[in-house]
């Protein structure tokens, strides 16, 4: 399937079909999720109304990690099959992932202050998420610094794949070290430990963020395709102009 859609034209057809669907789903799920999170769910018996921070904090943190996984997969596909589309995807995913990581850190800090009594603690979860942000920044800086596009793509891919180690640390940090942060409460072997009245709004918000990120990446991939065509046309013009000049002289 991957090789089928690696054809740029077929990919464009698929993206054209998916973009409106994902856009519609994002708006719909966000509307339902926000309503449930703010009005349709009860305050927590321990955390009171601060539980409403969870409905935007957890989806942001989830996207920070999911987009990193996507970045690593795209980098792998580029690295092994040298597929230009995968590299463009990686280039697009990185800044979006960085935005969600900043959002996760910011909302987490605003949740930590009233519940733990501190904005920040250098414990395993928070530190590893900060490292995740630095890996995103490092990836973007590396690509920007290398002038040769192919070299930037290859070196970036290696960095992105190596960064997977940190992603694993983020995920298991709450199990391996003692942390202020609570352990996983949705994806567990023995089933979720959140009450349904809080689980549903949270799951809908996570799904909404996922659709949104999917929409955004596909939309931007098509914009990049337009830009690539602009560059190709410009190069053709320049070559034609040069050929004319040479013919005159």
């Amino acid at each position, binding site marked *: 399937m991957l090789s089928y859609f690696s054809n740029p034209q077929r990919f464009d057809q698929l993206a054209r079909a998916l973009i409106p669907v994902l856009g519609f789903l994002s708006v719909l799920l966000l509307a339902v999720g926000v309503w449930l999170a703010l009005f349709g769910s009860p305050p927590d018996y321990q955390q009171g*109304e601060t539980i409403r921070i969870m409905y935007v904090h957890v989806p942001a943190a989830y996207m920070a990690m999911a987009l990193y996984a996507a970045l690593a997969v795209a980098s792998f596909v580029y690295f092994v099959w040298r597929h230009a589309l995968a590299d463009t995807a990686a280039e697009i995913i990185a800044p979006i992932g960085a935005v969600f990581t900043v959002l996760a850190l910011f909302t987490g800090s605003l949740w930590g202050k009233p519940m733990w009594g501190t904005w920040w603690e250098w414990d395993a979860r928070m530190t590893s998420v900060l490292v995740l942000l630095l890996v995103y920044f490092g990836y973007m800086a590396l690509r920007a610094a290398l002038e040769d596009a192919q070299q930037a793509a290859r070196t970036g891919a290696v960095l992105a794949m190596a960064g997977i180690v940190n992603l694993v640390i983020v995920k298991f940090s709450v199990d391996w070290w003692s942390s202020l942060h609570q352990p996983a409460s949705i994806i567990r072997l023995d089933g979720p430990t959140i009450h349904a009245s809080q689980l549903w709004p949270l799951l809908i918000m996570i799904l909404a963020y996922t659709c949104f990120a999917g929409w955004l990446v596909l939309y931007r991939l098509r914009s990049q395709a*337009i830009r690539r065509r*602009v560059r190709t046309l410009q190069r053709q013009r320049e070559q034609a102009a040069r050929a004319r000049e040479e013919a005159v002289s």
Partner: protein
Amino acid sequence: MSEFLEMGGYAAFVWPTWAASVLALAGLVAHALIERRQAREALRRLERDEA
């Protein structure tokens, strides 16, 4: 309504998280739309020169 806005005394923590989230998502959308429009305009300009 004002009770809702007070968020059980945690308004100063709850609302900034929601504001930041709205801002982040809106910013990502705005950036994507501007990028698309600029790309389209550049292409249109080149195609116009051709004609």
